[in-house]
């Protein structure tokens, strides 16, 4: 696995060389959570501490986006030829895939970690075990969702096609989730779909850490989410392998 960590770190170092991207992402999050969250909290009735609910939902969406970003990065690297270099290295496709998955986990920590920890402090829920658990969740979920992003990317192969389809899918996945609005406040049909939405489960997993929901709410969600992540990782790996080598092969 040493080579996979090398790939992951190399990709991460590339991102660290462009700190303005990180600052823009954090700034965007702060702006949306603080300003838009405060405004919308004035409009929503019947949901206590809605701004906190909204901000935690934003974190869940940011994690989902990180996973999809891993897919778009794969295609962007292919477009600029860097992926050819990776593909020609004396490493297996499995290591390359694992490296990208770990890299996506680290990308999640970079993009979502600092805002999440800041929210933890601002909501008064900061303590070390919770912070460490939150970091672990961000890493695991981002890496897991990268499996979906990479499966999409490997299936479409074209950057533009991927962007079109992923934007379309994202619009549904994010809006039909309980990340930004509680199930109780949603129309029946939407709520029925949102129950099975992975973004809803990410939000439900995060909410107890910020004292928005009791821990028992997230227990079933955790199991579903972990199962979903495992399926995402395996299917992502299979599609990646299949599309590159032209045949099915177990990872």
């Amino acid at each position: 696995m040493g080579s996979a960590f090398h790939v992951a770190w190399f990709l991460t170092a590339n991102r660290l060389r462009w700190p303005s991207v990180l600052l823009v992402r954090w700034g965007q999050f702060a702006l949306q959570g603080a300003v838009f969250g405060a405004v919308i909290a004035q409009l929503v009735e019947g949901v206590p501490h809605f701004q906190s609910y909204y901000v935690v939902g934003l974190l869940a969406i940011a994690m989902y986006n990180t996973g999809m970003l891993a897919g778009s990065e794969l295609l962007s690297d292919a477009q600029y030829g860097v992926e050819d270099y990776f593909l020609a290295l004396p490493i297996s496709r499995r290591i390359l895939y694992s490296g990208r998955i770990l890299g996506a986990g680290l990308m999640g920590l970079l993009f979502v970690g600092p805002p999440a920890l800041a929210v933890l402090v601002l909501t008064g829920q900061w303590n070390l075990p919770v912070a460490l658990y939150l970091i672990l969740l961000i890493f695991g979920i981002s890496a897991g969702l990268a499996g979906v992003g990479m499966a999409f990317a490997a299936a479409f192969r074209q950057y533009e096609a991927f962007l079109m389809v992923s934007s379309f899918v994202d619009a549904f996945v994010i809006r039909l989730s309980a990340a930004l609005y509680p199930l109780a406040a949603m129309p029946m049909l939407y709520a029925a779909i949102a129950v099975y939405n992975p973004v809803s489960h990410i939000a439900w997993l995060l909410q107890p850490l910020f004292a928005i929901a009791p821990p028992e709410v997230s227990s079933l969600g955790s199991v579903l989410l972990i199962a979903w992540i495992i399926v995402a990782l395996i299917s992502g790996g299979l599609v990646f392998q299949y599309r590159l080598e032209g045949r099915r092969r177990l990872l």
Partner: protein
Amino acid sequence: MGLFTSRRTLTKTEHWQRDGLGVLSPETVPWYNYIMDAIIKAEALVKRYGNVIALDEVTFSIKQGELFCLLGPNGAGKSTFLLLLCTVLKPTSGKLYVAGHDVTKDSAAVRQLVGIAFQEPKLFWRHTVQEMIDFHIAMCGLGRVGRQRAEEILEILELTSLRHRRGLELSGGQQKRLEIARVLIRQPEIAIFDEPTAGIDIHGKHVVWHEINRLKASGTTVILATNDVYEAERLADRVGILDRGRLVACDSLPALKALVPRGEVVELALSDGAAHQAQTLLEGSEGVLECVIVSNTRLRAYVLHGHHSIPQILERLLKRGIEVHGVRMIEPSLDDVFLHFTGRGFVELEG
């Protein structure tokens, strides 16, 4: 990892048997030694991109330790073949073996043997030269020996002073040299260079050629794709000429030259745009075997006896009012081999 790499490497004979080619021995097959020496073997190799056929039923082999040059105009399929060889692409049909490993079935084993310097440098724009080299050394598992070799290669390719520059801060030639450095540092069993000196200055070209020769001398099989006939003539043990995806010729340079029409080559320097008119006039005339347009102002005539034909050619051209600025007799070169086998002049190729 073990799922990708067979624990025990099959012998070449076992591979041939597995592929249904029966038991091979010097007694049963006259070309046994040649086949056994082949480290790369392509059989009816086809690669399509949609409706475009990049490689069309290409069959040939490359011997261990030789410097094989793939020559062809842009779009001939050279890079596609090299990308198949390093497992970045997969064949549409046909077979490609590297040291007995099928590139489709044993791609991980193939990558352990093959290193490529791409035509377009594949650099990470925000990483420094040193970081890219360090990453390459780590990924290829070269360790301390690799780091020592890297120091030497960076010095030779004049990259030492650039080691802290980022990829985006390098010039085109510097990027190309870094791309080549990665292969030289790795010293793979099979080194692939795709147009290695394109965009490099004259001094740099000689350095790269010297290093490629040094690599070959160390026992590495070198495959070089180029559209520079001079480069091929200077370096190659054998040359394969690709044209529109088909391998039109493949042999040693002397053998290929022997296939070009016998006679001598007369090159004429003409006024701009006069080459086509002169070609029409001279082709089929007495003593002229073939006429090829090299450029708008240069025409090459293959004649039986140069000294006898030159006065006749000049007389014919001057009578028609075609100005001749210079005449010279040249030795048949790989240029002529290339023109003969592709059946097209350079003007057409460039077009």
